């Protein structure tokens, strides 16, 4: 058995190494680019020969970038919170209740996520300029929620279905109203699902470029992905590759933190011990 397990381990190490390399080469490249200075930017070395923090200094002295970072964080957190709040309730209803129009709601949710976003940009632009939402936080938050909700409803209802029915019956028998049962028994148990969904929703908002570009015109509500495309070099003909790379690294950090913080919450088997053994 021993050599076989060693072989197995080696094999898995090999596979893991390949996957990690595949995933991390571009990331490391961006990091490397962000650390190069203007002179060595195009020298073809994978690793920077003389690391400098010029690009980082540049973006953190750029008030547009800082403003965009604040916009990104604010807009994405608000959109995520609202989408999760509504998504949780809708998913619970879909998973647990029988009501007329349930199938329609599920179908509509799927339909919304099927629309190519590019097809909606023009109408959204028209609507938002007409009602005065253009280039404001709500102007981005509302479409983000609309696109995040189907995702939230689908993932969350899967989680709710996993929770034993008996727990809800028990809560009812213990004197809980339906809302109390939802709030004090079901939601705490669905937390891993809620956090998973929150991460997915947050990432999809955070990475959005299309809406951020088309529904904003100033740094008023422009998020980082859009702001990066407005970076300018020292001269008109110079590409701001270094700062863009630095900005890309910077905006990855909040997501990594977000995932690390919530990952501890995504513990499998939280419902173990609920029913029999």
């Amino acid at each position, binding site marked *: 058995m021993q050599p076989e397990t060693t072989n197995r381990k080696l094999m898995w190490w090999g596979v893991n190494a390949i996957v990690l390399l595949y995933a991390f080469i571009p990331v490391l490249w961006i990091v490397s680019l962000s650390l190069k200075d203007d002179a060595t930017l195009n020298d073809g070395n994978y690793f920077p020969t003389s690391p400098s923090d010029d690009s980082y200094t540049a973006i953190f002295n750029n008030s547009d970038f800082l403003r965009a970072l604040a916009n990104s964080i604010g807009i994405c957190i608000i959109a995520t919170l609202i989408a999760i709040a509504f998504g949780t309730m809708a998913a619970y209803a879909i998973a647990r209740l029988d009501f007329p129009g349930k199938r329609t709601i599920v179908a509509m949710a799927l339909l919304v996520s099927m629309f190519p976003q590019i097809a909606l940009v023009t109408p959204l632009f028209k609507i938002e300029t007409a009602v005065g939402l253009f280039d404001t936080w709500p102007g981005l938050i509302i479409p983000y929620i609309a696109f995040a909700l189907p995702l939230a409803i689908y993932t969350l209802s899967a989680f709710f279905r996993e929770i034993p029915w008996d727990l809800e019956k*028990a809560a009812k028998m213990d004197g809980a109203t339906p809302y109390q049962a939802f709030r004090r028994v079901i939601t705490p148990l669905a937390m891993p699902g809620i956090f998973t969904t929150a991460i997915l929703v947050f990432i999809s908002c955070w990475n959005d470029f299309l809406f951020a570009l088309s529904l904003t015109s100033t740094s008023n509500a422009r998020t980082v992905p859009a702001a990066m495309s407005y970076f300018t070099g020292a001269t008109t003909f110079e590409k701001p590759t270094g700062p863009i790379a630095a900005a890309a690294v910077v905006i990855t950090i909040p997501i990594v933190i977000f995932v690390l913080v919530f990952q501890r919450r995504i513990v499998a088997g939280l419902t173990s011990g609920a029913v029999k*053994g």
Partner: protein
Amino acid sequence: MAEIVLDHVVKRYPDGALAVDDFNLEIADGEFIILVGPSGCGKSTTLNMVAGLEDITAGKLLIDGQVVNDKAPKDRDIAMVFQSYALYPHMTVGDNMGFPLRLAGLDKDTIRTKVQHAAEMLELTQHLDRKPANLSGGQRQRVAMGRAIVRSPKAFLMDEPLSNLDAKLRVQMRTQISRIQKNLGTTTLYVTHDQTEAMTLGDRVVVMRAGVVQQVGSPAFLYAHPANLFVAGFIGSPAMNFFPGQLKPDSVVTALGEAKLPDRVRQQLNGATGTREVIVGIRPEHFEEASLVGDKPGATFDAPVDIVEAMGSDVYAYFTMQGDQAHSQELDDLAKDTGNELHSGGVDVTARLDAGADVRRGQTARLWYDTSKIQVFDASTGKNLITD
């Protein structure tokens, strides 16, 4: 504490399936009632209707004289123990037990005292800060009991609370449940498919089959006077032996031969005169080895004993008599439920004999049975023809 009345209660599902038909029962204050029957007989549905987890299609449900058909479970003030225990996994044992009290809005000190008290009764005191996931099956079961006890409800509903425990623990918990119920004097409705639990726990037992109540009575009464073949076959372990036969004016002919009926049985059969097809039921303990009986009235026959199990206190003898097996819808239902659908070419008989009986496997033994204890059922309706 309360009395519960089910008055012509019917449950019909939207798809038309009839789960419970015309259920009538008056449960006295403090009574321990067992609902028993094979799976799918409607016993859990009945319990859920009392709990308020399922709607009542027709009929009335009264708790303490009040119609509660349309009341939500939380307004009925009854507690339930689930087969799966349904403990809240994110709460500690103490929080699980205190949950109904917190919902009721009691203050913290009262909750702590009540939880402490219930925990002592169930020997859970040292586990109060643990999560259900870290408990054994028996401990989880006790927490589920504790959650029901803690708020002193009008009634307990228990849905097969012991079926997930191993055999030894089940016996222990059975006596504990019985003790707790007697101490608290709370009206209890207990659902089980296990006839041993039904016999040992209940003040009265309700036997159900296919949504219809078959018989209601004390365990001893059901055992001695089953109303029909189904109850006769369901109550008692090992089960009653059934023989197809013909009833004649003063005797009965079965695979065991012709037996003269004692006067008392003949009188009890007063309604059933003339020759007719019947199914005769004999409990295993009403057999005995002929030489040990002396001259007590009864009938004897030769049994080709296949298997002998000496239990110390008794001897079980298994044998197959030539003849047709007893057939009825009710017995087939029972066989399906126990998974005992094997058919040998004759009537399988189990006899419980005295420990001193001289029976050996593979040998023919002269056995006696008590004709005054036999049950005679109508072959077509399954009704017990012996009436008091």
